[in-house]
């Protein structure tokens, strides 16, 4: 079983390239065609939010407090942090302590967490966590 694509026949993956190209050209051709020959209708119904006939309730102009968005963004930081912690956590118990230095492994993740602390300090000074 070849492990390198390099060992396989060059031509065998050409179809992928072809496919991508075809897909792009197809998409562009569709767009161009619909732009050229498609009908253009404007009107009250066309301009409605839901063309199916549903009437939107209330106004969409209602403002949320900016803190909602801030929290959402801060959440992203900690959210993404987890996906780095998982592989580390899975790997750490299994490493061969005779070969790899466990302290170095721990140090790496601690440094990574330190960067999160920087983000936290920044967020704190910025006032993200004040809810007054």
């Amino acid at each position, binding site marked *: *079983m*070849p*492990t*390198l*694509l390099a060992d*396989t*026949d060059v031509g*065998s*993956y050409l*179809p*992928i390239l072809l*496919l*991508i190209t075809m*897909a*792009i050209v197809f*998409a562009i051709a569709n*767009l161009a065609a619909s732009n050229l020959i498609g009908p253009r209708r404007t009107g009250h119904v066309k301009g409605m939010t839901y063309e199916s006939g549903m009437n939107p309730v209330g106004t969409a*102009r209602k403002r949320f407090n*900016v803190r909602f*968005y801030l929290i*959402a*963004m801060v959440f*992203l*930081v900690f*959210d*993404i942090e987890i*996906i*780095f912690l998982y*592989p580390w956590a899975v790997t750490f118990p299994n490493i061969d302590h005779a070969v790899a230095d466990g302290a170095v492994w721990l140090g790496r993740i601690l440094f990574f967490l330190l960067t999160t602390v920087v983000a936290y300090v920044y967020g704190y000074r910025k006032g993200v966590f004040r809810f007054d």
Partner: protein
Amino acid sequence: MIGGTLVTLLAQGPIPADMGGVTLAHYLVVSAVMFVLGLVGFMVRRNLIIMFLCTELMFQAAGIALIAFSRFHMNHTGQTFVIFVLTVAAAEAAMALALVVLLFRRKETLDGAAWRELKG
């Protein structure tokens, strides 16, 4: 979604045994389709949030291909790559969210075409 003949055509390469009946080509087709969908969506939609989601779609298309290749080559590099792709995608998401909020406050619309003062 794509005719079976095309799948067979693409599957002509060697099939790793432990990938079972699903070959690398299947994953790559899914990935390519997602990528093109993202491209097309990015071009035709004018809602900024949808446009952003389309770029996310393209990123995740790359992620699928990465994982498939990772399995194909029997190493973890591709999977590692995916984690970083996710990170960057999250960073972009945060930025997109911030930008979109900012823009919405300025013009009360999410229509990307509302921003065309600069041209020529």
